[in-house]
Each structure stands twice: as structure tokens, then as C-alpha cells.
């Protein structure tokens, strides 16, 4: 088993099997005791090995605690980052220039060192992941503040540096948050450097968000080659960089890169949004990627709601508007129920 996610999936199968055996015995089904004992001993050894190598959650209680630890790790990273930024802002003016440069360079290195030590001492690696995220934030702070200190012109290559550093921090122990940041930064860097090379300000990719869509789509196959523990984080980030700009350009008057009138561009992107939502949900069902189905469904829901508000809100009585929404939701439930029955019968 090469990844923690595969190991956790195997542990979940064992837990589900044990629950089912207990339920069958409670219902009076006769099961061979010798075989059950052999399976139990095998599963105990398997769980011991999986816990030792990958620190899996063997029980539901352990899984719930892990979720809590992940949330605490995320909050801790945010709080520690805010503390570091506040401290640096406070002491900044009292430091000589050499001290300022040294402090900014040392901050991400200290984060990497703390991450390395924590990863060796603590098997769950939640503290290490916290320091990994802080190291990434410290590096962003280093790049921004050094640029301000020396009055440098802004450059898209800074974003590439963010991506490389975050990837270097995320890779050894498969930390998903720095990896998601690395992938997002890479997806922004590609169109940014292209615009910069064409003579435009690189930040135009945020002013014309459709510039982010195609590079994110092109990076999706590359993300599939990442370690199994990181693929979902990268895929979610890239799909977010496709869907959020698509939602903006199809629903608001934000400018686009297309050389057509604003209204024409908006209609075109609405058609693309419909196609993307259907394709994403269908592909997610085919490939059994729950994250794709979830993202596609949420995107489709928000998109349809915005369309309905755009078409009907101003002139339709509000009670009728919400009644139609409820009827459509019930209709959608009925269609999905019919489709599920067909899948079960097939």
C-alpha cells in the first residue's frame, strides 16, 4: 500500500466487515467460528501494520478525532501566520535594513526546520502540516516585503517561486494544503507570464478571470500523476479555478478576454457553464470521483439559482419564485430517483 488514503480505505473495509458480521450474528445467521477467528486474527495484524505505517483511523471515534485535529491544525496555522505577520509589522521599523532582510529570509527557513523536527517526533504529522503551511505563508511574506523594501517592480515570476517552494514543502510528507497552494499558484503563473510576455500587466488575469480557465484545465492531467494523497487537493483547486471564474463571467458584467461584445461573451460562457457542469458530474460518476460530482452539483445549483434570479426576480411575485424553485428541486429528486432505480436494475 503506497498511500495513506489507500491504507485508510482498507481499514474502513475491515471496520465495515466487522460491523456486518456483528449484525448478521445478532440476526441469528450461523457463521463458521473457526473461519471468523482466522479472519479476525488476520484483520488485527493488518490494522496493526496499517496503523504503524500510515497512522490510519481504525474506528469511527478515531476518524472523528482526526477530523477535529485537521480543523485544529488549519486554525493553528492561520493563527500562527497572523501572529508572525503582526510581530514582523511591529518590530519592522526598529530593525536595520540588514536585520530586516535576515528576518524575512529566516522566517520560511525556520518554518521548514520546525516542520522537519515535528514530522520526526509526531507520527500523526498534524503539527508538521501546521508548520508547513506557516512556512509557505512566511515565504509569501518574504517575497512581498523584500519587494517593497527594495522598491522592485512587480513580476509574475514571484508567483512561480511561491509554487516551487510550496511544492517542495508539500511533497515529502504529502501535505495537502501547501500542495493545493502550489497547484493554484502554478495555474495562475501560466496565464500571468503569458500576458506579461505580451506586454500587459500580469495581474490582468484577475481583471479578466476567464484567463485562468484554460491553464487550469490543461494542468488537470498533470495533477493526476501526483501522489494519491495529494491528487484530490490538486484537482479540487484546479476545478475551483475553472468553475469560479466561469460563474463570474457568465453571471456578472466583469470583462472577459473574448474579442466580442460583453453580452455575447456572457451568453457564450453561460452555454459553456452548462456543458461543463454536465460533463463534470457525468465524469465524476463514471470515474467514481466524489469530489467532482460534489463540485459539479454545487456549481450547477449556484449557476441555476443565479439564472433564475436574473430572469424572474424583478417581475415575478416572490412566493411564486420560491414555489417554482421548490417544484424544480422536487422534480430533480424524482429524476435522480428514477436514474438510481435504473442503475440498480442494470
Amino acid at each position, binding site marked *: 500500500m503506497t498511500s495513506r488514503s489507500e491504507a485508510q480505505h482498507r481499514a474502513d473495509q475491515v471496520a465495515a466487515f466487522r460491523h456486518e458480521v456483528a449484525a448478521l450474528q445478532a440476526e441469528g445467521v450461523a457463521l463458521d467460528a473457526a473461519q471468523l477467528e482466522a479472519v479476525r486474527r488476520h484483520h488485527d495484524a493488518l490494522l496493526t501494520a496499517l496503523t504503524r505505517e500510515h497512522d490510519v483511523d481504525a474506528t469511527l471515534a478515531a476518524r472523528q478525532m482526526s477530523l477535529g485535529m485537521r480543523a485544529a491544525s488549519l486554525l493553528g496555522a492561520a493563527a500562527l501566520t497572523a501572529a508572525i505577520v503582526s510581530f514582523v*509589522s*511591529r*518590530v*519592522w*521599523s*526598529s530593525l*536595520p*535594513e540588514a536585520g530586516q*532582510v535576515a528576518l*524575512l*529570509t529566516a522566517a*520560511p*527557513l525556520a518554518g*521548514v526546520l520546525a*516542520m*522537519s523536527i515535528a*514530522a520526526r517526533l509526531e507520527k500523526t504529522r498534524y503539527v508538521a502540516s501546521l508548520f508547513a503551511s506557516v*512556512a509557505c505563508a512566511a*515565504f509569501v511574506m*518574504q*517575497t512581498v516585503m*523584500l*519587494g*517593497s*523594501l*527594495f*522598491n*522592485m*517592480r*512587480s513580476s509574475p515570476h514571484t508567483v512561480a*517561486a511561491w509554487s*516551487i*517552494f510550496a*511544492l*517542495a*514543502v508539500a*511533497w*515529502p*510528507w504529502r501535505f495537502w494544503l501547501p500542495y493545493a497552494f502550489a497547484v493554484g499558484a502554478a495555474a495562475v503563473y501560466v496565464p500571468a507570464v503569458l500576458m*506579461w510576455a505580451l*506586454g*500587459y*500587466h500580469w*495581474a*490582468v488575469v484577475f*481583471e*479578466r478571470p476567464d484567463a485562468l480557465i484554460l491553464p487550469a484545465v490543461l494542468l488537470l492531467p498533470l495533477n493526476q500523476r501526483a501522489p494519491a494523497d495529494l491528487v484530490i487537493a490538486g484537482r479540487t483547486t484546479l476545478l475551483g479555478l475553472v468553475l469560479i471564474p466561469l460563474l463570474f463571467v457568465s453571471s456578472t458584467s466583469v*470583462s472577459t478576454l473574448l*474579442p466580442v461584445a460583453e453580452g455575447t461573451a456572457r451568453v457564450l460562457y453561460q452555454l459553456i457553464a452548462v456543458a461543463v457542469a454536465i460533463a463534470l458530474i457525468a465524469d465524476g460518476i463514471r470515474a467514481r470521483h466524489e469530489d467532482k460530482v460534489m463540485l459539479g452539483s454545487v456549481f450547477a445549483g449556484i449557476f441555476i439559482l443565479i439564472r433564475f434570479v436574473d430572469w424572474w426576480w424583478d417581475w415575478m411575485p416572490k412566493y411564486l419564485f420560491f414555489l417554482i424553485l421548490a417544484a424544480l428541486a422536487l422534480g430533480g429528486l424524482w429524476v435522480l430517483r428514477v436514474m438510481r432505480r435504473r442503475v440498480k436494475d442494470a
Partner: protein
Amino acid sequence: MTRLPSIAAWVVPVLFTASILILSATNRSGAARAPMRLSSSEVSLYNSPTGRAPWLSLTWTHVIDAPSRGVRDLPRRGFAVLTLSSDSGVESRLTVVDTGDDADALAARYPDGRTHLIAAATIRGTRVVELEPSRIAIPAHLAAQLPPPAWRTSRAPSTALVVTVQYGSRQEPWLVDISHRATP
């Protein structure tokens, strides 16, 4: 299996700092233009009492329009030439008099840095919308010359300031001096 952070995690921060220092040194030691003296009317100061680094930005007016590229108003990179006009009726005497894509060509056309300042700029349509960088850091040894810290930008302190700004070979600025000029 013992894992180690990638070598890049240690090297990238150090490399980044080294590259910034090298670029900054190149900017200042290359073919730097002569410094320009500006009054407090041409700059906006920010000096927070909470210890954050003070900075200033240049304020300017337009005389000419940059040639339009007609490309859907996308902000493009270029260079702007600014000079101090003799018109005392305007808020800022610093005025955009030329724009272009080639800094060397502009430097050849306007060789005297004391009268003409060449800065990297963001141009939208026909107008210069921002100089790059938009802020110039005030070194600690010059910050002592500033008016008392204030929360908001100060355009016209009671004691007039003379700010000397210099642009280097990479069109990146630095502050040479800040001094006081007593108002009559």
C-alpha cells in the same frame, strides 16, 4: 522510511533574497539617472505610528495621452516620462510628458534625470494609471525627517519637505534624501 524536505525548500528562500539583492545592486550601480528634487506637493506620505514601514508615492497630472493600442482597455506595461511643470496653479507640478515601450530610447530623448524622471508605468487606454512600483520605501535613516506619524496620507505638512528621488538602470527608484524647507 526517513524523509527529508526537498532541497528546494531550503534553497528557494535564500536564492530569492540573493536575487533581490543582486537586482537592487544592479539597479543602483548601473547607468543611474541623476536624482530629481520634488516638493511635498508631488508626493503623498504614509507614516504610521504603529511601527509599520513608512512610504511615499508620487502624484502627477497628465498633459499628453499615450498612444492607444485599441486592445479592449487591457492594462499594459510601458514607461512614462515626467517633468516638473512651471504651472504653480496645479496641485502637483509633476506632469506626464511622454510614454513609450523602450526605456533606453526615452532616456536618450530625455538625458537629464534632474529635469525628467523615467519610471515604469501601467498604461490603460491612453492614460498612465500607475507608476511601478506605486510606493517608494523610506529608509529608516530618512524617516526621522518625516512629519509626526499620522494615520492618513499627508499631502501638505506644515513644514514643506524636499524629497530627492533617483531612478536606476532598471527604472526602480530609491530615496536619496528628505530635508525640510521652511514655509514663509
